[in-house]
């Protein structure tokens, strides 16, 4: 345990990455346990009809 700590505390970059990694792991585990599903957002564009998946169609129309 002490060894792991001394490796993590070697310099500030490692410490930053280790802290963020620990935080993310906690957030994700909590998310899974509490059933906070990871939602995939679909980008809706209300202003004009540009959709990235039918960009060719869009180009041919304009």
């Amino acid at each position, binding site marked *: 345990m002490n060894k792991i700590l001394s490796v993590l*505390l070697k*310099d*500030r970059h490692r*410490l*930053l990455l*280790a*802290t*963020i990694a*620990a*935080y*993310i792991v*906690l*957030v*994700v585990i*909590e*998310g899974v346990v509490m059933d*906070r*599903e*990871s*939602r*995939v*957002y679909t980008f809706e564009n209300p202003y004009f009809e540009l959709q990235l998946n039918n960009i060719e169609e869009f180009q041919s129309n304009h």
Partner: protein
Amino acid sequence: MNSRTFERFMILLRRELWESNRLFIASPVVLAGLILVAMLWALLQIPEPMKRQAIQQMETYLQGVSPFQVMPVFMAPAIPFVIVLYVCAVIYLVNALYHDRRDSSILFWQSMPVSNLATVLSKVVTVCFLAPLFAALACGVLILFSVTAISVLAASYDSVIAGFWSLLGAGLYSILLVYLTSVLGALWLFPTIGWILLFSAYVKSLPYLWTFGAFILLLFMEDLVFGTQFLANWVESRTSNYNYIVFSVGDFFQRLLSYDMLIGVAFGAVLLVGAVNMRRFAD
């Protein structure tokens, strides 16, 4: 915690307010001053019949209702104060563990028998509990002014609005609620506080860019690499879906002790542990 430790911690808090008095004391006071001037001006400008009508409407509205149930009206002036508080809090946190490294005054702070933990905690307590206090007090001046103005006007129109003292009581109580609401807001955003302080202790330059850039990058990375959005979800659950305006002290404790609140504080504390240890690499 013995009294000596407590006294030492109090001086750390005073230090924070000395340094950031413009952010946390002057800015709400100035804001209150501006709004007060606007209110006075409005009182003088609004024609007599309109004022009379307003008081009459209020009379109907308050009929059979205890003044404590109209608290939301009194809490409305808090909105600009909370917005200013948030902006100031972000500026404060980004610089909290960065500025002293930049001007190398950290060598002076580090020459004092104050632990890194105590230093970081003093910043957290300042932003979570002290800054909201000044915002609430400044806002309180406006609340008390409104209460007085309503009472004076009502008296001059022989209106029978609820008595001055019960209105005043409601006003004072809403000042407390404004304070509790802002404290709750700060605790709800505790992971954000932890994140900003972690980067504040880490960066050597461009603190804003690193702090917020790294976070946005992380959101994109998760989506790109794993196709999931746990982080974005977590952020969303932290910023919305939660109504932390409280209308009673009971509300406050209920929200404070809720699972969502406590887990956020716990996760934020993980980031704070990182920030505390980061101070070792202050050179």
